[in-house]
Each structure stands twice: as C-alpha cells, then as structure tokens.
C-alpha cells in the first residue's frame, strides 16, 4: 500500500507543480490561451460558412464569399490559434513544468502578446476589407487586391510577437544555469528539465528561422504592395514562392513538436505513466527536428517547374526522414502507457481496455495520436517526386492537413486545455458527458473528412475552388465525395468544436469550485494503477509503427499502380 501511495503522490506532483506557477505568469498564459481560443472560435465560425458553400448538396457555391472566408479561416486557425496557444505552451514549459519558476521578463511577454494581437486585428481588417488572397498571399496575385498590404503587415506583427516570446523563453532558460561558462552546468540543467521543456528549446532555432524568413518575405512584399519599392513582379513572385515554402514548411513542425511535447505531459497526467526509457532518448529525438526539417521544404514544390529533378529526388529522400522522430515519440508515449498498465498485471492487449477512456484529456491524447498517424500516412504520396503529381493541388491536401492540425495537434492541445482550465482556475469540468464525447467526435469527424476528402483528391477534385462543377463537366463522383467530406465530416467537426467551446466556456464560469488544484476529481482524476510487478516490455507499442510503415509502402505502391495506368502518360 505504501508503494501505491508513493506512486500516486509522485503522479500528483505534476498537477501541483503546474498549479504552483506564479499568478502573474499564469495571467500571461491565460491571455494567450483565451486569445488562442477566440481565434479558434473564429476559425470554426468561418469554417461553418465554408461547409455550407463547399457541400454540393446545398447548391450554394459563392465564389467571392468562399475565398474571403477561406482566407479568414486559415489565418485564424493556422496562424493565430497556433501562434497564441503555442506561446502559452512555451510559457508553461518555462514556468509550470519548472516547479513554479518565473518567466525572465513579464513585460517582454506582454509586448509579444500585444504584437500577436495587433497582427490578428490588422489581418482581420485586411480580410474583411476584401483581401481575398488566401493565407498564402502569393504575389503577383495578391497585388490585385487593395487590402493586401494589411495581410503582409499583420504577418510582420505576428512574426515579431513570436520572436519576442521565444526570446523571453530563451532568456528564461539562461537563468536556470548559474555558471554560464560551465558545460557541466548546462548538461545538468538540460538533463533535469522536463522532456516537454526540452522540446520547446529544440523549437527555438526553428522559430527564429521562421521569423527571419518572414521578415525577408513580408518586408519587401509589404513595401512593394504599398508602392514604396518597385520590383519585377514576376521575378519577385518566383523568389517569394521559394522562400515562402521554406518558412511555411518549418511552421508545420512547430505544432508537430508542441503536440508531442504536450503528449508527454498528458500521458503523465492521465495515466501517471513514467518513461521506462532514458529520457535522453526522447530529448535526442526532439533534436532531430531542427536537423531534419529545414532541408525537406522541397516536398511542397514537387509539381513546380522551378525546381530541378535532382533536387526533387534528394528532397523526396530527405522527406521520408521527417516521419522518423514522430514515429519514435509515438512509440515511447505508447510504451509508457503499456509498461505502466502492464505493471498492474494486465495482459498483452488487456491493458488497453483499462486505460482511462472516459477522461476527455486522455481521449484527446489517444485519438490525437491515432489521427496524427493516419494523417501522416496520407502524406506519403505527396512527399515523393515520382508520385506528387497525382495529388498536388487536389483536395487530398486539405484532407490530410485538417486531420493533422485539427484532429491531432488541436485535439491534443484541447486535452491539455481541459487540465489547464481545471488546475489554474481550480474548477471541475462542466458537462462531463459532453467532454467525454467531444474528443472522439472530433477525431471521427476529421477521419470521415480525411477518408472522403482523400478519395476526392485521388479523383482529381481541386482544392481551394468554390464551385467544382466546371459547368457540369466534372466527374459525377466529385459531388458525392465532397458531400461526404464537407457535408458529413465538416458538419461533425463543427459540432465537436462547439462541444469543446461550450465545455471550456462553462467550466470557466460555472464549473464546481475546487479548494486546491490537486483535488482534480471526476474524469480528469489520474488513473489509479496498483503495480503488482515490474514490467519493462512494450511489444504492443510497436504495432502502430509497423502498421504505419506498411501503409506508407502500400500507398506508394498504389500510387505507382495508378500512375502506370494513366490513359495519358506524362514524363
């Protein structure tokens, strides 16, 4: 019994640790979190309009409205929800996971927040003033919209915000080492910190690269769009496209890293499982991202004439490497659960049944990881030079990116938000039944969207097109597939989003008050695992990886099969 008490004491310490963060730091985190949630609410609201326009059964294709809403939806969801929530997570990594340590400068943190918020406002004014440029805002197309300068200016603000908060985080990390010149002291600090805090440190060079690329892109683009400098528009467009894709590619991996970092915290909070592997393995895997990610930007340009074939082939080979750290992290997180659960005497698969499936944060974690694996597999054909032309620019792109950023990253963030709101506001979750359903519904909705959307992509449905009828010339299958993807998948996603907003909103204002943060009860309570034996074997955790590898090989073979049988051969 004593051992069980000790284990549960140990597990509760993370909740206490998070609860101990300083109220001033918590306020900044809360500001970022709430701003992020508002951006997400906006992204979902505009998505509702997109669902109506893009579901052929409704018969309401409205081009101008569609492109405006699509621009706003993507900027709110992909740029601002992530910018805000990831800043909050970064602050949490520097304070809440560091036993109440303080942020280096609160003022700098608030300045960063002000810049990010200003960016959001400027961008939304731009979108609703008629900058129908989509979030990519490629010149020279963007120049034909008078409000385009506001899009570029907003992006410069959000980049400045990201720079300041990352600088603040980095300065905070520096305060953790007393003797700055001592390698030993740095090694000790890096080995002591939480895996997730280490992940945030690994993201710093990537974030600085994004900020640098953003300034290279948007300063001349902004000045050009207001007529202060004149450039050869087409020449500039070519350079912009290349630099843009370097930046855009790296941006994708910040949610991937942050999501995995959050997964390590969630697995501890929900199941109490601890790593059975040396923590340096997980930390080392995070170091792979800054090494592997930047050179793999080429895979976004596989159908471009401006990239030589040799570069595309090298890019394809390198692109395969970006799966590896994520696959191994998924193995470690699953292995933590497996070893922890099986130490209580459960069998080879029996442990899965005893997981806390009713805990919404756990459901977010497990469904998020599953969706991440499936969406990752769907990228296989797009990453390869020889097969990318089958899907480039088709609906298969949003069909994998939405499960990735909503069904995986955002869902896992939602999982930690359930805890953050409960712990920091000392409130029990409101509407536990709704909260239980929400992660499963969101995940299933995105998987329906992914399934029908990917089939639509294979059938040739173009992405970013309001009316896919092409004067009645489009294949009949397009309508059916888009009805399922947008009508069914899209609508279910909206419902799951509303459930999340209602549960979180009501918890903030009407959740039962807790005396202390560590009192967490109900579904969010940590799983009680009573160890009866030592267990360090994780065979089940290997299975998802095996399935993933087989699936990407099959997708590749399938793509080759389709391409080999095209009625028009391209070479």
């Amino acid at each position, binding site marked *: 019994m004593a*051992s069980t008490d000790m284990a549960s004491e140990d597990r509760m310490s993370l909740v206490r640790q998070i609860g101990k963060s300083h109220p001033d730091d918590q306020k900044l985190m809360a500001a970022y979190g709430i701003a992020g949630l508002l951006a997400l609410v906006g992204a979902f609201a505009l998505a509702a309009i997109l669902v109506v326009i893009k579901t052929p059964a409704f018969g309401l294709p409205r081009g101008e409205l569609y492109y405006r809403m699509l621009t706003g939806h993507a900027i709110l969801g992909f740029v601002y929800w992530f910018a805000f929530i990831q800043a909050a997570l970064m602050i949490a990594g520097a304070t809440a996971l560091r036993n109440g340590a303080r942020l280096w400068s609160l003022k700098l943190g608030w300045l960063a927040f002000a810049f990010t918020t200003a960016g959001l406002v400027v961008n939304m004014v731009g979108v609703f003033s008629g900058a129908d440029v989509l979030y990519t805002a490629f010149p020279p197309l963007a120049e034909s919209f008078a409000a385009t300068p506001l899009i570029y200016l907003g992006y410069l603000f959000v980049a400045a915000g990201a720079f300041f908060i990352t600088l603040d985080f980095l300065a905070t990390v520096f305060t953790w080492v007393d003797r700055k010149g001592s390698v030993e002291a740095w090694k000790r600090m890096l080995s002591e910190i939480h895996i997730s805090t280490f992940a945030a440190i690994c993201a710093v060079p990537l974030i600085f690269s994004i900020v640098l690329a953003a300034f290279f892109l948007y300063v001349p683009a902004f000045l050009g769009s207001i007529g202060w400098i004149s450039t050869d528009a087409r020449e500039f467009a070519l350079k912009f496209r290349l630099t843009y894709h370097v930046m855009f590619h790296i941006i994708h991996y910040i949610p991937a890293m942050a999501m995995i970092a959050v997964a390590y915290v969630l697995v501890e909070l929900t199941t109490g499982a601890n790593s*059975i592997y040396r923590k340096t393995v997980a930390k080392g895997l995070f170091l792979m991202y800054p090494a592997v990610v930047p050179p793999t930007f080429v895979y976004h340009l596989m159908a471009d004439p401006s990239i030589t074939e040799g570069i595309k082939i090298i890019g394809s080979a390198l692109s395969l490497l970006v799966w590896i750290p994520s696959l191994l992290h998924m*193995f470690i997180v699953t292995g933590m659960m497996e070893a922890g659960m099986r130490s209580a005497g459960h069998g080879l698969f029996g442990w899965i049944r005893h997981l806390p499936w009713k805990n919404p944060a756990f459901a977010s974690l497990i469904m998020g990881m599953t969706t991440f694996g499936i969406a990752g597999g769907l990228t296989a054909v797009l990453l390869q030079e020889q097969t990318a032309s089958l899907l480039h620019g088709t609906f298969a792109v949003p069909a994998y990116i939405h499960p990735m950023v909503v069904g995986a990253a955002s869902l896992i963030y939602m999982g930690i938000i359930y805890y953050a709101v409960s712990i920091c506001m000392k409130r029990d979750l409101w509407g536990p039944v709704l909260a239980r359903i929400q992660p499963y519904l969101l995940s299933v909705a995105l998987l329906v969207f992914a399934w029908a959307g990917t089939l639509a992509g294979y059938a040739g449905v173009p992405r970013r097109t309001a009316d896919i009828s092409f004067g009645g010339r489009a294949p009949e299958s397009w309508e059916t597939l888009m009805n399922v993807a947008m009508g069914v998948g899209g609508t279910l996603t909206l419902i799951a989003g509303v459930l999340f907003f209602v549960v979180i909103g009501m918890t903030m204002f009407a959740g039962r008050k807790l005396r202390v943060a560590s009192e967490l009860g109900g579904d969010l309570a940590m799983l009680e695992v009573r160890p009866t034996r030592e267990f360090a074997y994780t065979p089940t955790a290997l299975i998802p990886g095996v399935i993933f590898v087989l699936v990407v090989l099959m997708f590749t073979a399938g793509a080759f099969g389709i391409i080999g049988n095209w009625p028009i051969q391209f070479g």
Partner: protein
Amino acid sequence: MKDVKEAQADVLSVGADAAGYSRGFEQAKARILKGSNSYLVAAFVIAFSVLLIIPMWAAYGALFPKENGGHSHGAGESLSASGFEERTARFIEERRLPDGSVRADHDKPIYVLATQYSFTPNTIRLAAGEQYDLQMLSTDVVHAFSVQMGDTSYNAVVMPKMVTALKLKPTKPGAYLVVCNEYCGIGHDYMYFSVIVEEAEAEEHHEMSKEQHEEMSPKTKDREHGEHRHGK
C-alpha cells in the same frame, strides 16, 4: 544517476525487503534497461523502415519504363511572356481547325498560355499513341494544369517567367477536362480547357465533319458535358 533512482523506485514498488534491496535493485536496473532497450531498438528499426520507399522508386522505374525517363516538369526554361505569347499565337494559327480547336503535331511543341481566367488554346486535339511536347507559361499569376482522367488526375504548376515543360503520350481516346487547381483569383473556378484524344487514324482526316465540330465546340459543351468525361 536518474536510472538508479528510477530502478530504486521500481524495486520499492514491488515491495523488496531491506536485506535484498541492493541485489534486487541491481537486478531490476539490469532487467529494465535490457527489456526496454531491445524494444526501443526494434522501434528504431521499424521507424527507419520507411526508407524502404527509396528502393520502390527504382522498382517503379523497372515496372513502368518510360521513353523519356519517369520524371516530370523538371527545371523549365526562363522565358518572357511576350516571347511565349508569340509562339502560342503561331502554334494556334498553324494548327487551328474550323471549330476553333487546335490539332497538335507530335513532332512540334504544343504551347499553352495560362491567363486569369482562361487557357489558350481552349481545346487541343491529340492522337492516341503519339508522344507530344507540351510547354506552358502564365502571363500573370501562378496557375496549374490539372488533367482529369476520370477517377484520377495529373497535376503540375504553371508559373509566370518559368516554362513548365512536359512530355505526354495519350493512350486512350476520350475528352479530358483540364482545370486550374491553383487559386488564381475570384474567377478561378471558371478556368479550364479540353484535351481531346482521338483514335490514331483520325489524325489523318484533317477535315472533320461539321457535326463533329459542333459537338466539340466550347459553346455546346455546357449542354453535352456528359460526353466530355473520359469514358472507359
């Protein structure tokens, strides 16, 4: 040091007595590292197996050999829009049929100009079994060339200032819709053209019947869209 602490906790958790503590702790440490590490090594092997895709590229080349290699739209030629417009105009003038469509010649390049929101020419006729060179350029913004082949498509980006050069060989007769799948402005949804692949022998009959021309003419396509899909 960390591993020692973790192993110590594990030993305590199974209730080892004080006498056997030291021995039990060492054994547990050895078991934990041995047990978990072998699975970790297996996970690394599985994760790196994604690189098996690379030999598949070679296998694909062997299964579907192509006369001009298997790779598409490599680095294009940098060309001014006006130069390309001239070539396109000459190509259309030389090969235009009375219905406005253009019949391509397999030993001369096909030129297609992409402009907001149309392709020029807007109907191209090819003969099954022949190989063609296709060159495309945009005069304004980035567009795309997305050929619909029934239940699948081929997609390439068409840029300003950089020619997209493709080799294509139609094998099955039919009418193929080509759409722009890169957002190019508010009229993007209406940017498309047709590629009509005819039986090889049809190419010899340069004069088509009036009825056939009407059937393929852009004005009547809206009414007869069903026939303009790739039929199998």
